[in-house]
């Protein structure tokens, strides 16, 4: 659809006067060009303005459309590829390097503020090389992370399930470089979490989730090869998200802590984030009563598969686990966001940023 045609349709759907068109059009064009057009799940030929026309056209009357439009204009948070790249470049200097500095300071018995002494030391270089960086999903952009921080290819891996041959290779390369055979820091990295539940949760009394699976193999030695990667007595683990809600960070931290207590394992595991989404974000959305009525009205319960049902389900129109997020990531919309924003292409009501689900 030509953008000019889409704009004409938009003005008709919204019932805008020429003055309103003049006010809104530059804003929409700027939002589209700066960010929204880069949404990777738009079908070929579809761009933000076209999607907005389709989305608003599904809403019954002009008053409701204005509520929906104003919500998008005032509340939507779109994290672009460029912003994620920026967070990736910040990960090492802002989060990882301080961890390595603290560790080295203790080993050298110097103040952790003697930055130059520490970072110029052989011990710091060794600790950096003895760090293993594991991407928990494609979103971790672990390749980009490696390139911008001068990290060896032999200390990164994009999967928490590491094959036997890869483990062997990682250890061999570490031995070649340092003469040692175990890593002393593990960094588990991912781009985003809202609830933390896909990383660590219990279902019918059983623990589940990516982080659980990795830690269980490593710490309970259910996978001998994996546990051979580290010497537990001097190992620390950091779980790092580029973007996460404070609720999710607290949830994962508490869950892991309880689990470790249960197992009586003493190991330093921390959870950190570069960009924290504060609880106020959700509270603000819950104040948007008019828009929430629309969320409820146009909700499609056919999205409720077994994965969706693992979260809270009292108000499923608020998204997975009722997270009520107004958040879009450039490559896909998380299911914790309000479904009215991401309902799939095959649903009766299609979202403004249709989501592609991992679980087909």
């Amino acid at each position, binding site marked *: 659809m030509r953008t000019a045609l889409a704009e004409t349709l938009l003005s008709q759907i919204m019932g805008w*006067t*020429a003055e*309103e*068109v*003049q006010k809104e*059009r530059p804003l929409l064009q700027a939002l589209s060009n700066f960010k929204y057009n880069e949404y990777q799940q738009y079908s070929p030929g579809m761009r933000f303005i076209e999607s907005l026309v389709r989305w608003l056209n599904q809403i019954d009357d002009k008053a409701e459309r204005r509520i929906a439009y104003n919500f998008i204009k005032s509340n939507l948070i779109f994290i672009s590829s460029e912003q994620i790249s920026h967070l990736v470049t910040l990960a090492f200097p802002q989060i990882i390097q301080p961890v390595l500095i603290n560790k080295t300071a203790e080993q050298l018995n110097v103040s952790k503020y003697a930055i130059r002494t520490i970072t110029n030391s052989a011990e710091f270089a060794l600790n950096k090389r003895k760090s293993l960086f594991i991407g928990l999903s494609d979103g971790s952009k672990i390749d980009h992370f490696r390139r911008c921080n001068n990290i060896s290819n032999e200390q990164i891996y994009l999967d928490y399930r590491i094959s036997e041959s890869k483990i062997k290779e990682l250890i061999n390369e570490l031995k070649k470089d340092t003469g040692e055979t175990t890593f002393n820091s593990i960094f588990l990295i991912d781009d985003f979490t809202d609830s933390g539940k896909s990383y660590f949760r219990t279902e019918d009394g059983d623990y589940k989730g990516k982080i659980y699976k990795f830690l269980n193999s490593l710490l309970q030695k259910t996978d001998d090869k994996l546990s051979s990667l580290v010497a537990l007595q001097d190992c620390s683990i950091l779980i790092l998200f580029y973007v996460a809600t404070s609720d999710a960070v607290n949830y994962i931290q508490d869950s892991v802590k309880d689990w470790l207590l249960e197992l009586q394992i003493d190991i330093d595991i921390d959870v950190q984030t570069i960009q924290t989404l504060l609880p106020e974000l959700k509270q603000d959305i819950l104040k948007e009563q008019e828009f929430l009525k629309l969320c409820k009205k146009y909700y499609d319960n056919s999205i409720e598969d077994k994965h969706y049902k693992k979260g809270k389900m009292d108000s499923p129109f608020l998204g997975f686990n009722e997270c009520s997020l107004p958040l879009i990531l450039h490559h896909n919309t998380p299911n914790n966001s309000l479904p009215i924003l991401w309902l799939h292409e095959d649903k009766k009501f299609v979202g403004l940023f249709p989501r592609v689900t991992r679980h087909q």
Partner: protein
Amino acid sequence: MRASEKIESDVNFLRLYSPEVLELIIEGNQEDLWNNVVFIRSSPGAGKTSLLRLFEPNSLNTIYNHKSQQDYRELYNTVCKLDVINETGVSALGVLIQFTKNYEILDDIKYSEVTRIRLFYSLLNARLVLATLRSICELNKLSYPNDLEQINYEYENEKLFLRNIQSPCDGRELFNWASGLEKSVYDILDSFIQPDVDKIEGHDELFTLEILQPKYFKVNGRSSFRRIIYMLDDAHKLSKSQRSSLFKYVIDQRGNFNIWISERLEGITEFKSYHERDYYEVNLEKYWGNNTSKFKKMLSKIASKRAAISTDDVDTFAENLDDSIDEQIFQKEIKESIETTRKKIQEVVRKTKKFQDWLDYLIQQSDTSLKTAILHKSAEILIHRNLRKSQMVLQFALSIPELIDKIDPSIESAARYFLSNEYGIPNYYGFQKLVVLSSNNIEQFLAFASDLFEGMLSNKIASQDVQLSTKRQEKIIALVVKKKWNDLSTILPNPKAVEGFLNKLGNYFNKITYEPTASYAPGITGFAVHSSRRLIEEKGWQENEIFEELQDTISTCLAYNLLEVKEVSQGAKNQIWTVYYLNRWLCVKYQLPFTYGGWNKLTPEELLKWTK
């Protein structure tokens, strides 16, 4: 529809460029233009940089290569008159140096004044050499710096200007020498400690202007241009000492080279007359101010060219600006104004029969057209004027011919502004007003025109008539004015003082303009500084430190194009007054007319209070 400096492609820049500004140069004496120093002066956005960009090799090559195309024909013919292009090709080499703040930084380092100027000339000589080599490559379609060996430099170094390079030489050797010199000056700027300045090749003069002449350059054995135009852009970014040293040097040495220097007018004293100086001055705003029809023609072309390349199906501009009031739409306001004004006149007639005939005449005008409303308002203004001086005048009834005779265009114009002010009947609309609103500044025109064009597009998208109504135009213009005003707080060095000063000035003008007698009809938009200190001979306000804040404020207003300067002769002795008029966009803010001519004398003491 925005600034040409931001248009990246030469083709687009030239397609959108309107050659009227070149006529300014063509109309002058060609002898003044060549082998001389030419200053191109204006406030920001008047088109200095675009004018210089036109003479860069890529632009001239593009014009020459597209000379048969309709879009370029006019531009080609115009530049041919300047003898920078002829039938065989481009004959002038434009060399552009953009002054940036890094020249001024040289003045901050802790060396003597003499050393700092030597470093400045070293850097400028190096950059002129590099820019010349780059331009030669561009003109001859060579790759810079890869193809520099194809350039031969045949200067014999008779005056021994070149100390660390053997000349004649090729372009590569000249490039290496200049790059090395440039780098050595950078090293000083980047150094934390005070480096040994004696190791650097310091220059006492800008000798490159003499040694970089067309006769010394051959490309693959042949000459490729007849003259070089050195264009130094944004000279106001130099420090005071650099600027005065450079200007003195080029003016003293004038005659052997063409040097064009563009700069923004910043100081109050710079607006004094230049005619006795030894250089040629092109003042863009002054030129447009004296050639309003040409300015209008140029703006019309600029708008049309830009609208024509729009992909949004609105390809004309001026035609889509409604230029007359739709009386049907404003019927209610017009009717109300007539009734109210008539009532007020009836009140006066109850007290004095002097205006009875006028009232009867007004009542006879039975229709409710805008013309009638203007007539009523004009009569009301005249009655107020008459009443003000009526104490000494006999109470004879005034006749209808007297009324008709007294209503001149300025009273009518004032009446229109009164109607606009009191009843919201638009006054700022139409292409002609937009031209005046631009205050002879192209960037300012584009700021308003682009939003008006956006309004036309919005009309089209909203399935309405593309043409913008007068009311809508006025509304859009008011929004742009509001934005420009809000932007002042971020762009001005001392926004509070300037905003406060302009506010007091604007409100004062508004108060006088809308006095019931409309004494300065159609209104007042300017002031001249009138010193009342007579007893002791003191320095003028421009030099007197007591008025430093006022000097700073007015200088800032001039540099940022918030005040326009005109020299006006007035009084029996034809005294010349420097009148500072509000830029026309500020007239919109204070609902003032666009006409020049209405100004008031204010004392520096009074004006100083307004800066507090």
